[in-house]
């Protein structure tokens, strides 16, 4: 998906390369790199790329935003860029203007549900919210008695119990105790928590695919440099075949994630075909993450297990991202039920619909 001709993506990649180099970040224990990076991203209009200009954003195509997210995965970026993009998109659905600064979204798990009370306040708890503690605002999908709303909430109004993901990124539990949102509008027809979850799943899939792309590149490079038994380990057939398998997993993740992104970018609605694309992307990317991370670590040996090496930035994030916006098991069950309900003879037509 690395499209050198695309100015938005090229801008993002330049910023990542300049200000979010994994090697540099890995040795910066104080997080001093975060502020300048975020500032550069903001100045380039990237966090709100998916927000229309009249609502405070850059009005970029969905495709461009997806490509930026994929690139962010290739840098194992650990600032809430993807989350802010997603929040902006969500607010845009209900024509709510996006504020400045970092945002995140809730819920981030299909198990959680935020309730829109009759008095306009929000109640409920959501676990595993990425970067809640460092975001100023949160975009919320809330369910009323028989309506769905999208709301903008200041995180200062929430109770936030800090947590960490597998990759040590913020993954917080947030509690809404009759919280008054800054804005709250009905979601468009057909939009519900699943829509938001599918979109979030595709975002995470693109990040995983990007991380896997790098796992492959880092591992191939290391195999060419590291000598054991008097030759580069990449000359051993067993290592070659493992790296070929890693390439297969990376390729499958990229194909699944970019296909889903492309499908959403060109779709009119979140229909069964989009459900297949988005659910498959999350399932396949999660499966690929497990296999790819295992191979990349195996190739690296003990060095890859150290905090000093950058490998873990990619491997652990790829694994951690599996859990957000519905795990692979969640989507597999949901997809399997949908396939079964459609019936055997409708399976192939659905698969072959694009």
């Amino acid at each position, binding site marked *: 998906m690395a499209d050198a001709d695309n100015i938005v993506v090229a801008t993002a990649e330049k910023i990542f390369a300049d200000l979010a180099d994994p090697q540099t970040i890995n040795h910066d224990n104080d997080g001093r790199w975060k502020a300048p990076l975020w500032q550069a991203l903001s100045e380039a209009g990237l966090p709100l790329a998916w927000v229309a200009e009249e609502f405070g954003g850059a009005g970029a195509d969905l495709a461009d935003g997806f490509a930026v997210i994929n690139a962010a995965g290739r840098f194992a970026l650990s600032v809430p860029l993807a989350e802010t993009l997603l929040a902006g998109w969500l607010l845009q659905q209900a024509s709510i203007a996006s504020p400045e600064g970092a945002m995140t979204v809730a819920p981030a798990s299909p198990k959680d549900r935020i309730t829109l009370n009759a008095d306009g306040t929000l109640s409920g708890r959501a676990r595993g919210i990425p970067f809640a503690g460092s975001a100023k605002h949160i975009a919320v999908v809330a369910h009323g008695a028989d309506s769905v709303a999208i709301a903008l909430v200041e995180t200062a109004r929430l109770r936030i119990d800090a947590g960490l993901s597998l990759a040590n990124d913020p993954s917080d539990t947030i509690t809404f105790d009759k919280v008054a949102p800054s804005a709250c509008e009905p979601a468009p027809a057909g939009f519900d928590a699943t829509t938001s979850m599918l979109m979030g799943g595709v975002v995470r899939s693109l990040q995983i695919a990007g991380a896997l792309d790098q796992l492959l*590149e880092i591992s191939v490079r290391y195999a060419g440099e590291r000598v054991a038994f008097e030759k580069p380990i990449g000359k051993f057939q067993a290592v070659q*075949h493992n790296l070929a398998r890693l390439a297969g997993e990376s390729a499958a993740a990229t194909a699944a994630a970019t296909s889903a992104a492309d499908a959403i970018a060109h779709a009119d609605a979140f229909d069964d075909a989009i459900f297949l694309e988005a659910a498959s992307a999350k399932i396949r990317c999660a499966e690929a993450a497990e296999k790819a991370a295992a191979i990349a670590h195996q190739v690296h040996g003990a060095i890859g297990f150290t905090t000093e090496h950058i490998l873990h930035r990619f491997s652990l994030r790829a694994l951690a991202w599996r859990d957000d916006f519905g795990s692979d*098991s969640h989507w*597999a069950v949901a997809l399997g039920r949908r396939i079964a309900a459609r019936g055997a003879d409708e399976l192939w037509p659905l698969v072959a619909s694009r």
Partner: protein
Amino acid sequence: MTALRFDPIRLPRECEELRKEVRAFLAEEIAAGTFSPFKPLREDADAREFSRRVGARGWIGMTWPKQYGGHERSFLERYVVTEEMRVANAPVRRFFVADRQSGPVLLRYAPEHIKMDILPRICRGELCFAIGMSEPNSGSDLFAAKTRATKTDGGWLINGSKIWTTSAHMADYMIAIFRTSASTKENRRHGLTQFLVNMKTPGIRVNPIGQITGQKEFNEVVFTDAFVPDDHQLGEIDGAWKQATSELAYERSGPERFLETYYVLTELVRAVGPDPDTRSAEGIGRLVAQLHAMRRMSVSVAGMLQAGKEPVVEASIVKDVGTVWEQQLPHRVRDLAAFVEEDAGNRETLENQLTFAIRTAPKLTIQGGTTEVLRGIIARGLGLR
């Protein structure tokens, strides 16, 4: 290392029109009893006539120039036809090899009068081709072939044997590599030449080889002073090694490389019914997601072929991932089918399909480039070799 590319391809509208035509055609053929989508162990009875009807529709040689009977359509259109045929379990074996591999070789290397003679007949579905690569002592290692072509007046005399040649027993022609010189120290791949062989040539004997599936697609082909005329030589003398690699790319990423056991998945979905338990739902969901991802990779490769690229590594990856998947699929479906109700309407169909698919599975990662060879190609593409 070169970055792998799998750009998302949206099939153009004409593909969808074509898909409808193909489905309608196949539905008619099924209704007429030509074949059954549920019976993998189908005998060859009606395949010959089916082949001609497919040709009449313009679905063989789809991407070839019109002057040779082709239709100058896109790789993506061809892709759609191939996948619909495969999923319906249509009896494509009489024309598929010619369409996928032999035709393109002839287009590139055969003299004009041979192209004018043979290609239109392939497109009409009249000719069945076989490929003569492997020999009893050379399997994955094509360049160890020993079957000789000795120069004689106006042509060559072939002696030796080929093995594992699918469809040789019903083929009209074979495209084969024969040894015309010894290999050299510098280049062990030197010395093989590619030829077109008319299977009616005296001196050719075809011995079928029984397979554990109960089928007899494989053959040993024995050549005893079989004469091949000069104009049946394809490409450079002693230089088949330059041709073989790119030709094998055709074999590597089509939908036939992950759909060979697909039928068991359809029947599993039917057997579990509309309201599966969590176990069945998750199993089906994962298998469908894997299938979908592979198909999107494969479509992407077709798109690259259409764009004139040579995605050798990407194609090898699709085949590696795809054949391993289609090999395991029957076992995963067997697991999931363990608790299918006794009274499921298609239980017996599913069980018979599983038996056949499990017997078929071992060959899927062997035929047309083994897993080991494919991973070697990928490793080379990654810069490791």
